[in-house]
């Protein structure tokens, strides 16, 4: 067991357990904070997979941006006194059905992984940082996507402001 394996298992367990809390906890605040751990775990996985830039991005955007947004969302839509902060009870059938679906999906995907012939190249070249490559590709092959994303961001900002703005 080298450190990579250890850390993989660590992060994997972290991700899954925190994700389980996210999806099951009756307290919304718990869920939100569990999500923090999930994101953090995913960032760890990125590091294992030599995606350093991604890991940083993950932490900055997800934890720094999205999670904060979500917490704002929770706070703005629940009375702070915390009486009502719990998520409502879900019906048994719904739970069962959702569980059934999720399990089937997971099993299906795992079965898929076992049969798939992935496009895997033997040369597992090690590089120090992916930033260079990302920068290159982003502004050549993905130039259009990159530029379009900015348009999308603009629209989203205006839209979010428009919708969230009070009358």
């Amino acid at each position, binding site marked *: 067991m080298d450190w990579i394996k250890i850390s993989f298992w660590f992060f994997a367990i972290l991700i899954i357990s925190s994700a389980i809390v996210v999806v099951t906890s009756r307290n919304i605040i718990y869920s939100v904070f569990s999500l923090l751990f999930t994101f953090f775990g995913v960032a760890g996985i990125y590091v294992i997979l030599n995606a350093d830039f991604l890991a940083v991005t993950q932490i900055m955007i997800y934890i720094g941006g999205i999670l904060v947004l979500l917490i704002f969302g929770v706070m703005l839509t629940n009375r702070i006194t915390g009486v009502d902060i719990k998520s409502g009870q879900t019906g048994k059938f719904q739970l069962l059905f959702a569980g059934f679906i999720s399990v089937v999906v997971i099993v299906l995907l795992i079965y898929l992984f*076992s049969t798939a012939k992935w496009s895997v190249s033997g040369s597992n070249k090690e590089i120090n940082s992916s930033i260079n490559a990302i920068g290159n*590709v982003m502004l050549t092959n993905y130039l259009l996507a990159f530029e379009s994303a900015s348009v999308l961001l603009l629209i989203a900002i205006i839209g979010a402001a428009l919708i969230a703005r009070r009358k």
Partner: protein
Amino acid sequence: MNLDITHFLVLGAILFGLGLFAIITRKNAVLVLMGVELVLNSANINFIAFSKYNGLNIDGHIAAIFVIMLAAIEVAVALAIVLNIYQNYKHINVDEVDKLKD
């Protein structure tokens, strides 16, 4: 047991399943959005894993970046909509927003 790509994929799959479960079962709209984030994260794990095991094919990273960005956009817009719902309904229980139905 050596780490191979399947480990990461299975991790992603489980996250995907949990995300789906959250989307379907959680009543609070914010929690539903969290479920969506889980799903997107699972896709990202896939991208990065495939990238890594395909000779660090950088396309996967790019995809992951876009997904993260779009996740942020989606959450922003979705939260705005949830806030609007809150203003109109004084709650954000998704399953109680059901006036439109057959």
